[in-house]
């Protein structure tokens, strides 16, 4: 029997502590982990909860992130509630095994504290690791602050373990900006949190000796395609279930989440589309800019990056005139991946807003309120001109000469 952990109605937690408290309250059975900055405190705290008797679980320290996710797969296939955390290089080392977890339909929850990928080595937050996971078949949710890192981690178990989903879920938060910034958080009581998440009901668990199963089968060209199609459908079909879980959570806490969040979008002419902590910066800039200049600025944030909300993001943006899609990951010789996805959705609207791409904030470079205002203002210039007046892709907050690519043919 676990020792009672005293909680106040309001706690001061950083994103890492918040996520680890969610793991404790969800009574995670097994955490298999290898430490990496800035995600380390999540698994470290879980280990201390086990060591101090606050939870009946098992903390397994392994030799690498590859082994960490492999261990999670074993524990999850055995029927346990399983979670871990990682960042950056650790995420990259885990990548191969991420595909195994989703392919085997195992409901593991991975807390990803977003951090840049080397080289050059960098410990700060950008979205390179998050992007690396985007085709891995996991559900990816984004928290924009510590409270959300806690809330979404609880929701993640409930989504992942739903028998109509049975897919692993990543809960992302931005390295340091969220993970190490202490903020007011309002936790549920242990009882309410666990009641919300519920008991895990295993599927095809390897400890069911009345029904032995094989995990990790080989399928060649005659079977592989069908299995991947079934997996894709499960991911696409998880959308309404995520909505249901968010709705149930809102009923419990009053904190309402949507797969696509819209701020000041009712009458917006121009919008920034963003992920992570940038959302809060852009929201603040939009409010100020509206007062200062009358530019009708709004913000669309993607809460659920995978399954990508193609229809909801389109609905949120179809009536604006100009959209800036922001990618916090080095695009590696292409338009930003997020830009491409939002653009594809907007291409199927009647109005087809003008869409430009900003590469920003790499390696934790600060994204300022002034820069967000400048981007909004530039969108207004596109809207007034009726076409894109700058390069379609630009780097924002970069020292040195202007760096940008491609002109529109619509002007």
């Amino acid at each position: 029997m676990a020792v009672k952990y005293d909680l106040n109605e309001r706690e001061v937690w950083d994103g890492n502590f918040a996520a680890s408290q969610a793991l404790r309250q969800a009574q995670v059975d097994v955490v298999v982990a290898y430490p990496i900055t800035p995600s380390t405190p999540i698994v470290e705290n879980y280990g201390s909860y086990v060591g101090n008797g606050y939870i009946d679980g098992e903390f397994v320290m392994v030799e690498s992130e590859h082994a960490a996710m492999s261990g999670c797969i074993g524990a999850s296939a055995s029927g346990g509630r399983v979670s871990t955390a990682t960042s950056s290089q650790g995420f990259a080392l885990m990548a191969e095994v991420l595909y195994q977890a989703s392919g085997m339909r195992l409901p593991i929850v991975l807390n990803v504290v977003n951090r840049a990928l080397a080289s050059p080595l960098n410990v700060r937050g950008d979205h390179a690791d998050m992007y690396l996971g985007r085709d891995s078949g996991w559900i990816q949710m984004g928290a924009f602050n510590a409270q959300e890192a806690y809330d979404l981690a609880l929701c993640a178990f409930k989504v992942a373990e739903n028998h109509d989903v049975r897919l692993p879920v990543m809960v992302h938060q931005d390295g340091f900006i969220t993970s190490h910034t202490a903020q007011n958080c309002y936790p549920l009581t242990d009882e309410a949190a666990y009641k919300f998440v519920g008991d895990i009901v295993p599927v095809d668990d390897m400890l069911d000796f009345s029904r032995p199963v094989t995990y990790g089968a080989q399928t060649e060209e005659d079977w592989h395609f069908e299995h991947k199609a079934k997996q894709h459908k499960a991911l696409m079909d998880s959308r309404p279930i995520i909505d249901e879980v968010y709705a149930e959570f809102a009923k419990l806490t009053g904190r309402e989440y949507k797969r696509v969040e819209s701020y000041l979008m009712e009458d917006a002419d121009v919008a920034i589309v963003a992920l992570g902590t940038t959302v809060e910066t852009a929201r603040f800039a939009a409010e100020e800019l509206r007062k200062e200049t009358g530019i009708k600025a709004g913000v669309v944030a993607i809460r659920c990056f995978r399954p990508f909300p193609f229809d909801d993001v389109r609905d949120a943006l179809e009536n604006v005139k100009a959209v800036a899609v922001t990618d916090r990951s080095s695009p590696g010789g292409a338009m930003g991946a997020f830009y491409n996805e939002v653009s594809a959705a907007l291409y199927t609207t009647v109005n087809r807003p003008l869409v430009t791409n900003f590469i920003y904030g790499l390696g934790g470079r600060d994204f300022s309120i002034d820069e967000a205002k400048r981007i909004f203002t530039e969108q207004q210039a596109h809207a007034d001109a009726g076409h894109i007046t700058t390069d379609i892709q630009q780097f924002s907050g970069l020292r040195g000469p202007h760096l940008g690519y491609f002109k529109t043919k619509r002007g």
Partner: protein
Amino acid sequence: MQDINLLANDNRGKSQLEGGFDLLGWDEVQQGSVLPSFDGDATGIANMKSEERSYSGFNSYTATVASWRVQKPVFNIDVCIDCQNCWVWCPDSSILSRDKQMLGIDYDHCKGCEVCVEVCPTNPKSLLMFNENDDIETALSQWPEKKKKETK
């Protein structure tokens, strides 16, 4: 001489590994490609003999890989001392043995690796490799004599 179907049940080796199944659509395949080994409740199956178990179509027991083999081991019961070395070492559980008595080879799953021959300690060996198409009776009739100790 070994009966080819020694200790087989209705299921063993009934399908070829390739193309032996109905090709189902994406909506019918196993979730997560997780494959149950047995049909029905398998409680206590560890205490059942393989020929009594209800292996599912997903279990390799029900598929044959005999076609992979170029050479096959042949078992000579007259020389065997039931030491179980071959049973321990066979990587494909293809040595058929009951109550520590060696009975023969599961030719549906043996891949002809020759490990059993290598580890057999008798003189002459109780297991020898022959061409896949040689019949067992002929093979047994060609069995070598006991090798004499060299005199100095």
